[in-house]
């Protein structure tokens, strides 16, 4: 604690005779901060010139008056005069910063996929979660890298032109589509979206959907995500049937949400050994509520829960999605055991942004938007990257270039990318 005294009280500080100050007229009623009177150069710097100068004055006055200033203040040298000082040597210093002590609760580890030794048929499994800090922070290394699952649909759908070009040859075969994203585009996982089951689209039966899931499981040996159509009435029946045919594979069932019969999906996950994707819409309290219901009411084990707190595209609400995820992750690390689960992002939503797919800006006042072929993938990359920094673990994505670049940056920050060192000392003169 610092103690403040007035100049008129200076005498008592020295334990001397206050009478000695008589006859000395000191104007103003300035206060000096005793806690900072150590007057070494760093302190003077911290105090700023004005305070330092004032303190110097005080000491000089006191010296004239015969007070043992140098004994009291440790015999410091002259500091911080009015004219700028010139130094001939750098002040030596060490920089240090502490680790975050509030992050004591690790994020739950969740294993996706199961190999033959665990009752499945996947070649290998993926582990998400386990973090003890925000992603890529020095406080604690991230135990598992980010992973990417690529979208496959059970029927042809409308896609941005830049996306479509990659899938035209496989658009009628979910199995071939799945093979392609794993073989050619480096997908860690595959998401099969059963959109044809929507009563407003084709109303495909749960049994038919289950057949598609079986085909995908046979086509690839990576873990998979089983996605419904998003129809709250139909999804529980579809996911139940698919969970059954995929028994033991530890797929992600996407999704349980508060506006459908989540208990049925939770039950299917328990019965057939899958992971539940707990999906809420940009609302941290709803996410807590759904997670709590899945655990307490439905009896889903912690290691079988993954969250999707909703992804909004860059320029279309990513600020909410980012902060929502960051708050969820910080709450989890700080001890909220209803929120410390790994997270998944529907990064493909980035393609909803008009900047990602429109030929040019609909607004005449805008600067030229340039070719859209380049805009789309970077929109998907930056949407995903931003959420990776907020703590997202798994990315559902669509464009191969976006997948490749997002992998490159997330694995670089994770620490698994080795490259030759680059000398940046002369960047100013670089010819670029």
């Amino acid at each position, binding site marked *: 604690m610092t103690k403040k005294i007035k100049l008129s009280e200076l005498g008592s500080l020295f334990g001397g005779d206050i009478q000695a100050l008589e006859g000395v007229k000191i104007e103003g009623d300035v206060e000096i901060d005793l806690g900072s009177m150590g007057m070494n150069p760093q302190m003077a710097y911290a105090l700023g010139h004005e305070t330092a100068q004032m303190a110097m004055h005080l000491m000089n006055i006191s010296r004239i008056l015969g007070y043992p200033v140098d004994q009291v203040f440790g015999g410091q040298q002259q500091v911080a005069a009015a004219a700028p000082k010139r*130094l001939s040597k750098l002040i030596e210093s060490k920089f240090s910063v502490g680790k975050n002590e509030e992050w004591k609760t690790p994020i739950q580890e969740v294993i996706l996929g199961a190999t033959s030794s665990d009752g499945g048929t996947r070649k290998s499994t993926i582990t998400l979660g386990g973090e003890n800090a925000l992603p890529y922070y*020095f406080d604690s290394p991230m135990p598992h890298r980010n992973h990417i699952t690529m979208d496959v649909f059970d029927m042809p759908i409308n896609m941005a032109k830049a996306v479509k070009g990659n899938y035209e040859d496989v658009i009628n075969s979910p199995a071939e589509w799945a093979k392609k994203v794993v073989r050619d585009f480096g997908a860690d996982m595959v998401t099969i979206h059963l959109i044809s089951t929507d009563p407003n689209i084709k109303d495909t039966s749960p049994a038919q959907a289950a057949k598609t899931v079986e085909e995908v499981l046979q086509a690839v040996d990576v873990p998979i995500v089983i996605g419904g159509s998003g129809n709250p009435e139909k999804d529980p029946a579809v996911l139940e049937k698919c969970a059954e045919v995929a028994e033991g594979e530890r797929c992600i069932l996407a999704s349980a949400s508060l506006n459908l019969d989540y208990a049925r999906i939770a039950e299917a996950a328990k019965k057939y050994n899958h992971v539940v994707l707990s999906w809420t819409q940009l609302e941290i309290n709803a996410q807590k509520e759904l997670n709590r219901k899945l655990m307490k009411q439905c009896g889903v084990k912690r290691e079988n829960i993954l969250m999707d707190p909703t992804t909004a595209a860059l*320029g*279309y*609400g990513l600020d909410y999605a980012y902060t929502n995820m960051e708050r969820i992750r910080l709450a989890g690390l700080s001890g909220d055991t209803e929120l410390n689960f790994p997270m998944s992002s529907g990064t493909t939503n980035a393609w909803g942004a008009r900047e990602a797919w429109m030929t040019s800006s609909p607004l005449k006042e805008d600067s030229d938007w340039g070719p859209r072929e380049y805009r789309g993938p970077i929109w998907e*990359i930056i949407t995903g990257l931003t959420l990776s920094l907020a703590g997202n673990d798994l990315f559902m994505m669509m464009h191969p270039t976006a997948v490749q670049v997002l992998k490159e940056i997330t694995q670089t920050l994770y620490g698994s990318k080795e*490259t030759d060192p680059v000398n940046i000392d002369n960047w100013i003169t670089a010819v670029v």
Partner: protein
Amino acid sequence: MKLNSPLQVYKYLPQTNCAECGETTCMAFAAHLIDRSKKLDNCPPILKEAFKKKYIELITLLAPEIREITIGVGERAKKIGGDDVIYRHQLTFFDPTAFAYDVWDTMPEKELVERVNKITNFKKFYIGKFLRVDMIAVRCVSGDAAKFAAAVKKVNETTTLPLILCSFDPAILKSGLEVVKDKNPLLYAANEKNWGEVAELALTYKVPVVLFSPDLDKLKSLALTFGEMGIKNLVLDPGTYPQGKQLKETFERFIKLRRSGIKEAQKDMAYPVMAVPLNAWLVYKDTAAASYWETVLASVFTVRYGDIMILHSLEPYAMLPEVHIRETIYTDPRTPAKVAPGVNQVGSPTKDSPVIVTTNFALTYYTVESDLSSNKINCYLAAVDTDGIGVEAAVAGGQLTAAKIKDAFQKANFEFKEKTSHNTLILPGLAARLQGDVEDVTGLRVLIGPPDSGRIPGWMDKNWPPKPK
């Protein structure tokens, strides 16, 4: 800032409740000082001589943890730094990252002028305003002081944007400074070798200066030394390495600097931090690959604590995501994302004009509204109260329903029979599944618009006026 409750601030205020600041009480004003929505200078009484001491104390206590520095002069002058929190939800981030794009002194004059104009004039519409970029960084590639001065002169004649003068050679920096000494440019940069001479320039010309060292001990030495010499308008460049382990370490340095400045209140290093995503071009030569990676680096350091950065690519696919990610991070999370529900006029609608439905999510509403007005479509636009949720999510989540739509028109006293000749409503393409319900509930004819409001003009050509059934 060092104070965290209105009561602490109140102690320093005149406590007269004079209301000259526009607030009814000093306590209310104190709350605005804490959330930084008002400035101390908004209080006329405290500026008077009698309160001078309290004013000086309070202004020091209210100063942001990260020093706020101004670069440039006039309307386009830019403040950087000024932050008080490490996560945006704790308050908001202040002074959006300044984006400087480079030019160099070996460019032919015509190209130089074109590039400067392109940077100066860049704009992108977003929620009722235009996003822009901020500065020009002039790099000395020639090694020739006269050539550098000539380039700086040309840039200065072409734009009012603030400048960053880039060279590690103090003589070259000086030649540039002479040309723009009244424009408050940022000097880049002092390092371990040239610091004495660069400090002399900063003192002589009273300009802000960047300190460069990827070694944080050395960076701190530089900051302490400059501080000791009375140079406080500092920016720290801890080095931006473009790839591999070096990039991971770069990321860690940004986290460490900001944590030390805000969480640990280490004043010695509490300055704005600079990133140089341009360094992506040191490893990628292909324009698309380099632009992509540069945008990736710019995004990483916009999210994590870069206050100013130097960039190279002017490709729209680099600049568009860059200005949007900055907006994402710096948008004030305290500002409501909703517009008032109601039925609004766009242009001057008549009885034959369309009636279009959207949600009251601010992003959606302003996007639709600007698409309509920019294309001079006169119409009625209904903002349905969906609790500020966008169309697709609101349909899925039950916040946008036939009943809610009917309610919106009823509350606005909007009678279709009286206001329109067509008795027709246009739903967003993403709400197509509500068509039947809305017809049943409202008795109106319901058309399905395009999934993106940017396509309304084309849609109107084909579908409006509605064909008789």
